[in-house]
């Protein structure tokens, strides 16, 4: 299942360390994969039903 969060609260994605830090945070809540769009400032997370992503912002749909 895919979740979308606009304007997420996440580590700086301009460095590899930031990418790996966000990955660790998302995997801790059960994410299987994710992607972040700079232009849209949108985080898309793939994972099981009922994931708690509230720490990252408001889930738009999913």
């Amino acid at each position: 299942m895919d979740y979308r969060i606009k304007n997420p609260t996440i580590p700086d994605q301009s460095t590899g360390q930031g990418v790996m830090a966000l990955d660790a945070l998302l995997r801790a809540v059960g994410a299987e994969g994710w992607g972040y769009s700079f232009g849209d400032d949108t985080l898309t997370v793939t994972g099981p039903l009922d994931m708690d992503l509230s720490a990252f912002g408001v889930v738009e749909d999913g």
Partner: protein
Amino acid sequence: MARSPNCTGAPLFKGRVDVTITYPDPDETLLETPVALPTSEPAEAQISYTLASGHMPVWSPYELPHILVANAYAGGQNTAGSATTLYYRVRHNGTDIATGSGSVSAGNFWTLNMYKYIAGLALGDTIAISLWVGASGMTWDYKACVVKVSAISPDVSMADLKIVLPNKKRPTLTIGNPFWWSESRVEVCWDGGQIDSNTLGLPKTFTALLWRSGRANAGLFSAQFGVTNSNVSLSQHTSYRPYYAADTSAPTAISYTPLNLRV
């Protein structure tokens, strides 16, 4: 007698528009020897494409207003004995457009699919993909790039519209296999809605006596990737590499007679 404000005084019809669009084969490379991915972000992207005319759709005898989307792919394999995280960063002209990661199961082939909408994408632009991993044992050996039409948007009323829609996945890469949803919809649009390819049934020459193109962004035609579905995604498969995102092809010919109508 008062003149209708919709009457411009100009002839009702303009000269007929009749264009064809051809699409290049993807620019593909399969390395003879897979290259190991580093465990931290590399200073230089492993994959970089500068968009050349050979990547671009070709319009004849002239272009209609349209939006382009670049599809870029990277592929490889997790040769480690356990699941490993693959990280990616995608840049357009040196500016970050996407980051992300996914876990690749032991032994699986992976594919990074880039079909993100980039405003103003043009000849000479660069698309670069950096790849790194959480633990050693992952390699890359495949890359591909092609530029497609995401939307066609002449802002006119038209008569005797014909749109030739083939039934072909784009891109069709020479190795690997597309996703199960690869034949996802494309849409013929008008200023009030759209008809998707499942309803149309492809291949088809769509015809209409009168039509109005003008819906924001989509206009007359909208493909799945680009404006409609803008993303970067990671896929994996036990044997397919690439296991890639593709959509149904864009029109190969469009003809209509523009009308001098204000709406």
